[in-house]
C-alpha cells in the first residue's frame, strides 16, 4: 500500500520560510493560522556542539493517526479509488486516512467544526478558523489537489534549496524511500507519542539532536480530548441548523 511521505534535509534548509508562505498563498490560509511552519531553533549548546537549525513542520500523515479517531461525526461508507483503478470501500468519519495514498484529509462537507481533531494532534498540525461563521478543521493535504495535475506540493515547488523531498514510501526507487531505508532519517516521535509520522528529517548530529530535544511531542493529546464532547457537538450542530434556516 502506498504512503506518501516527505524528507526534510536540514543540511540544505536555511530556514527561509518560503514553504510556509507558498502554502499560505496556494490555499489562502489566513493569518495567524497555518498548515505548515518554520520554527527557528538555537543557537543552543547541545551534547554534540553548538547548534542553530530549523523545524520545518507540517502534518505527518501518520501511520496510526489519532486525529481521525476523535471525530464525532457518524461514520459513512466511502469507495476510494487508486491511481491504477483499484477500489476499496471503507467506513470514514469527517476526517480520515486515504487507504491508497496514506494522506490524512478532512471531509469539509461533513466536518462540524467541533475542534476535537485540532486538540488531538500531538504535532499541532491542524487549525480551526474561529473567525469564520462556519469553521471547519483545516490542515496540510500534501497538496493532493495539485498531485492530481502532476504538480508537486506547493511547499516542495518553492523550496529554494530543494530541502523538501516528496514521494511514495512504497516505491523503493523513490528518493524518499532511499533516504528512509538508509536509516539516516529520523522521525519526531517518543515513547509516549509513537504513531508513525511520515515526515522525516536528516541533518548534522547536533542539528538533529536540537530538533529532537525541542520538538518531539510527548503528550498524548488525543487522550485528553473529551470523547465525545457532547456539548460542543450540539453547539456546532445548532449553529449549522441556524445557518440553513
Amino acid at each position: 500500500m502506498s504512503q506518501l511521505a516527505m524528507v526534510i534535509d536540514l543540511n540544505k534548509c536555511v530556514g527561509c520560510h518560503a514553504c510556509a508562505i507558498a502554502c499560505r498563498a496556494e490555499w489562502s490560509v489566513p493569518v495567524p493560522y497555518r498548515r505548515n511552519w518554520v520554527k527557528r531553533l538555537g543557537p543552543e549548546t547541545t551534547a554534540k556542539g553548538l547548534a542553530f537549525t530549523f523545524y520545518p513542520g507540517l502534518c505527518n500523515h501518520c501511520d496510526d493517526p489519532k486525529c481521525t479517531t476523535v471525530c464525532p461525526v457518524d461514520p459513512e461508507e466511502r469507495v476510494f479509488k487508486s491511481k491504477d483503478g483499484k477500489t476499496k470501500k471503507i467506513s470514514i468519519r469527517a476526517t480520515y486516512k486515504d487507504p491508497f495514498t496514506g494522506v490524512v484529509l478532512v471531509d469539509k462537507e461533513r466536518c462540524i467544526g467541533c475542534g476535537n481533531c485540532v486538540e488531538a494532534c500531538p504535532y499541532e498540525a491542524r487549525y480551526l478558523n474561529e473567525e469564520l461563521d462556519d469553521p471547519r478543521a483545516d490542515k496540510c493535504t500534501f497538496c493532493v489537489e495539485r498531485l492530481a495535475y502532476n504538480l508537486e506540493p506547493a511547499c516542495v515547488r518553492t523550496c529554494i534549496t530543494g530541502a523538501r523531498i516528496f514521494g511514495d514510501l512504497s516505491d523503493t526507487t523513490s528518493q524518499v524511500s532511499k533516504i528512509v531505508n538508509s536509516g539516516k532519517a529520523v522521525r519526531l516521535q517518543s515513547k509516549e507519542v509513537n504513531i508513525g509520522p511520515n515526515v522525516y528529517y536528516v541533518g548534522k548530529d547536533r542539528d538533529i539532536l536540537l530538533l529532537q530535544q525541542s520538538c518531539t511531542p510527548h503528550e498524548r493529546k488525543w487522550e485528553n480530548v473529551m470523547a465525545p464532547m457532547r456539548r460542543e457537538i450540539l453547539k456546532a450542530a445548532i449553529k449549522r441548523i441556524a445557518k440553513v434556516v
Partner: protein
Amino acid sequence: MNKELAKISYLLAQGFSYPGQNNCNKTFFEAVKEVANAFEVPCGSISFSKDELCQAYTQLFINEPQGRWAPPFSSVYLSAQGLLMDKGREQAVKFYKEAGLEPGRLTEPEDFLVTELHFVAELLDSDNLGLLSRFLQQHMLKWFPCFYRRLKALKPHPYYLLLADLTSRFLDTTYQEVIDETT
C-alpha cells in the same frame, strides 16, 4: 418609490466620492439634508469647505498616518486576510455579472463602496428587486455594518458620519422594502 431610492443611492455614492465640484456645492448639501430629514436623522449645518472635506476624506478613506481609517472596500471586511481584491470583490463582481453589468471606468477595485451603491441604484432603477435583495443580504449587509462600526469608532468628521448614518439607514430600509415586495 424605487426610482427615488435609486436617486438616494446615487446621492450617497456621490457623497462617498472624493470631494469635487459635483458633490461639494450648495445643491448637493441641500439634497443630503433633505434625505437626512426624510430618514429622521438629525443634522445641523452641513456646509463645509472643499479643503476641509478633502482632508477628512483622505484621512478616513485613503491614507492616514495614525492607521485610523476605514477602507471603503468590502474585501477588507469579508475575508480574514483583510486584503483588497479578495472574496468581497469576487462576490461583488459575480453579482454585477448576473445583472449583465460591469463597472467600466473606475480605477478603484470593483467592491468600492461607491461602485456598490451605484449597483444598488442600477438594480432599483431597473426594478431587479430579486437580485437586489440577494445582493444586499448575501453581500452588502455583510460588510457595510463592519465598515460603519469601524468608521464610527474613529469619531470621524461629522459630514462623513452623517453620510454613513444615512447609508446604513438607507440599506436597511431598502432591504426591508425589497423583501416586502419580493415575498
